């Protein structure tokens, strides 16, 4: 049992080690893991290493739906581990390979279990509810600990002066062993966590005992301590070392989780004049991604345009995604298509939610300021704050009663909501001054979303009232929804004698992958150098940060993730 079996469930922590908003560190076969629970109760067991620069993720912040790395603030979604935000580049897509390495994880009988292979079948029999005893690290391998368990004696009622008889150790699974107290219904189940080559964590669960829990815990603590002392008094254990094989090499080859998913419109509602809401459900059995307050989806409209919509969900709504859409009079067709072409049952393509407008943990009281359709991300924040019992206020500016959306959700927020209706520019300025001035502003943080002129007003009013620029947060949508398309061109592969077209709007790397040509790629932002490709001829358009000026001028290489040809024929040495 000392060898790692990637298709087996191992206990990695007790349920109580992962309370809400906490991240704990755990070990299995020398590998370190960050173990955490999202606000919906799901547990995550992730390699304890940020895929960006290797910082331990256990130092990060559990936001309730994501884990945020302490080094550069990158956030990773509960469940998939997909990166949802790179704060250094609010306007760029996150690298698709930036993904926390997640093991399969389940919780049962008061313990968190994990399996390296995501295809591992769910564990069968449960042990049953019981009293969780103290877990004990023992500086010996699991086989030695298992052998010692056969001599363990205990009294079912936890009487220290009793002289209990021995019982046979029964293997329930390769990681769990049961001792039944003779003449009693009490069962003691040991769970072995092989933390490292010479370290085992011994967990124990007492089932069917009725005596005082404190007495039982004390009774077993003494006996388990004695077992540890006997084991460790033998030859000293070898020192701990970092495992030399990277964790991903232990796992079956798998692609990073897909950032795109299909969803179906469950319902469509008219929320107010010019605004509809859509409730979206996953189109297949794949669970929906976790949603952070302030997150937005990229949706492809039926007319083929990509548009961003903030999610309106409260923290408890995990089965569907709710978005609000305003019909923009000067729309280039995105919102018009969503209003005119989408009905119940319509299938839409969406990307994993990004969270570029996060609620920043600061201890300061949030003032949420919404203008018009800008209510959507702030509503999601307000519901999250209410669920956590944190004080906040939500100011909603709208042109009139008939333009107020999401009335039921607003009503549920109670007194925290103030409506400011039908104000002109001067009145809006005055209202913002009332909200933002005359307060000890170092105790507040402002989150604002709305039309550009109103955000500018929030910015200037806050500045005039001594509120620091650091305490005013604005929604920031990526501005590359319409990517610089580039010219179409023809690619000729010299060595494999193939030819294909790259249309405007597609990267050369995407085109190569679509043709089934294996080109390694990592950052997909032209910075890491992984996709370096040699060029025979062509007029090149370089957009990367990796190649030197001389290399770019040579015309002999390019980074196909961001660079392309200016038209004509590009001949590659592939």
């Amino acid at each position, binding site marked *: 049992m000392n060898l790692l079996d990637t298709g087996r469930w191992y206990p990695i922590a007790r349920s109580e080690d992962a309370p809400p908003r906490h991240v704990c560190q755990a070990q299995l076969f020398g590998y370190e893991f960050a173990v955490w629970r999202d606000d919906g109760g799901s547990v995550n067991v992730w390699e304890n290493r940020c895929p960006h620069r290797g910082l331990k993720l256990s130092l990060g912040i559990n936001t309730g739906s994501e884990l945020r790395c302490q080094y550069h*603030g990158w956030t990773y979604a509960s469940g998939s581990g997909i990166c949802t935000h790179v704060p250094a580049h609010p306007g760029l897509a996150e690298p698709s390979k930036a993904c926390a390495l997640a093991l399969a994880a389940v919780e049962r009988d008061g313990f968190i279990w994990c399996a390296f292979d995501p295809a591992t079948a769910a564990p069968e029999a449960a042990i049953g509810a019981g009293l969780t005893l103290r877990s004990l690290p023992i500086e010996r391998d699991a086989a030695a600990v298992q052998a010692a368990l056969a001599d363990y004696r205990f009294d079912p009622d936890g009487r220290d002066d009793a002289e209990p008889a021995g019982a046979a150790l029964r293997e329930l699974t390769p990681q769990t062993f049961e001792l039944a107290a003779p003449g009693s219904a009490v069962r003691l189940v040991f769970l072995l966590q092989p933390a490292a080559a010479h370290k085992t964590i011994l967990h124990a669960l007492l089932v069917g005992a009725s005596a005082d829990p404190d007495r039982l815990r004390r009774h077993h603590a003494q006996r388990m301590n004695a077992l540890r002392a006997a084991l460790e008094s033998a030859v000293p254990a070898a020192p701990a070392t970092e495992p030399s094989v990277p964790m991903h090499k232990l796992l079956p080859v798998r692609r990073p989780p897909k950032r795109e998913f299909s969803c179906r419109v469950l319902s469509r509602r008219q929320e107010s004049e010019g605004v509809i809401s859509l409730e979206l459900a996953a189109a297949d059995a794949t669970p929906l991604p976790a949603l952070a307050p302030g997150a937005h989806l990229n949706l492809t409209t039926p007319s083929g345009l990509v548009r961003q919509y903030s999610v309106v969900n409260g923290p408890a709504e995990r089965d569907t995604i709710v978005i609000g859409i305003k019909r923009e009079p000067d729309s280039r067709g995105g919102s018009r298509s969503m209003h005119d072409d989408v009905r119940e049952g319509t299938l839409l393509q969406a990307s994993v939610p990004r969270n570029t407008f996060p609620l920043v943990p600061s201890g300061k009281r949030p003032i949420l300021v919404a203008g018009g359709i800008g209510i959507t991300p702030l509503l999601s924040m307000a519901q999250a704050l209410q669920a956590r019992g944190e004080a906040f206020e939500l100011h909603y500016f709208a042109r009139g009663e008939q333009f107020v959306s999401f009335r039921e959700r607003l009503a549920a927020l109670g007194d925290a909501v103030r409506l400011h209706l039908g104000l002109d520019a001067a009145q809006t300025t005055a209202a913002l001054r009332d909200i933002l001035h005359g307060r000890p502003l170092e105790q507040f943080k402002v989150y604002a979303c709305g039309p550009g002129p109103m955000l500018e007003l929030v910015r200037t009013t806050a500045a005039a009232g001594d509120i620091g620029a650091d305490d005013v947060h604005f929604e920031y949508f990526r501005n590359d929804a319409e990517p610089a398309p580039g010219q179409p061109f023809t690619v000729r592969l010299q060595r494999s004698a193939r030819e294909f077209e790259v249309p405007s709007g597609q990267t050369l790397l995407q085109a190569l992958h679509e043709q089934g040509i294996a080109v390694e790629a990592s950052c997909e932002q032209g910075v890491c150098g992984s996709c370096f490709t040699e060029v025979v001829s062509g007029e090149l358009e370089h957009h990367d940060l990796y190649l030197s000026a001389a290399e770019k001028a040579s015309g002999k290489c390019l980074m196909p993730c961001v660079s392309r040809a200016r038209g004509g024929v590009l001949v590659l040495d592939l």
Partner: protein
Amino acid sequence: MRVDEMLWRDWHAVAIVADIAAGRRYRTTVLGVPVAYWRDGDGLHALREAGDTGPCRIAERYATAWICLSDAPLDFFAIPEFDEPDRRVVGAGSIRLHVSGLRAVENFLDMGHFPYVHTGYLGAEPHTEVLPYDVAIDANNEILATNCRFVQPRASAIAADPIEVSYTYRVARPFVTMLYKTCVPAPDRRDVIGLFIQPLSEEWCVAHTVLIYLDDVNSDEELRRFQQTIFGQDLMILINQVPKRMPLEARHEIPVRADAMSSAYRRWLRENRIAYGTWQPEAVEA
């Protein structure tokens, strides 16, 4: 293992000279080789320890004591600002770290972590964006990152208000890096911070910091304290990076455009055939 030639011939910082008490013998290691050094009336002296009679030169430059273990030492890199008469030169301490020295250099070259690691000093949310900057290798085979800008709440010991600072980063040697930054009292000149990393071994290093400043307000102690506050915050990150040695291949640690300097540093290490302190899983597995 064989230490890369470029490192073997290079000079490695072992102490800030002002921190070396006369007449006392100090023991340390350089590239895994145990050495001793001391200062007396004749200046600095050094020897290898443990009966090793190989070369062990010592020299003073930039307020720092440097050791070279080779008979064919490389020339020193230049810091012209050091010789300007109105400069203050302050040693800001030597801190031992359980991580590859390459990771310590890379952390020094990074702006993206300011709002998260140096919150309220060198950065703060929501000002998290790293704007594009330029990276190039110059004629001396040094890496330069220019046009780096960042909004900082308190950029130095004498900056009271947030300012947009302008940085130039320079990597002169694998373990020698410098930062040139906006100087609050003299906007046309720049303060210089030198970070000289002593590679004790592949997974341990000492970071020696020297400030070459135009500040005439703060005491040495105040400048030192500010720099040590900043470094203390970095330390918590550096000792918690895994693996401790630095991977050079992008598939193991994924960069973004803000990491153009780090990406250039890793490429430059590969092209200069530096393996010491790097993480190479294939070699370990073989």
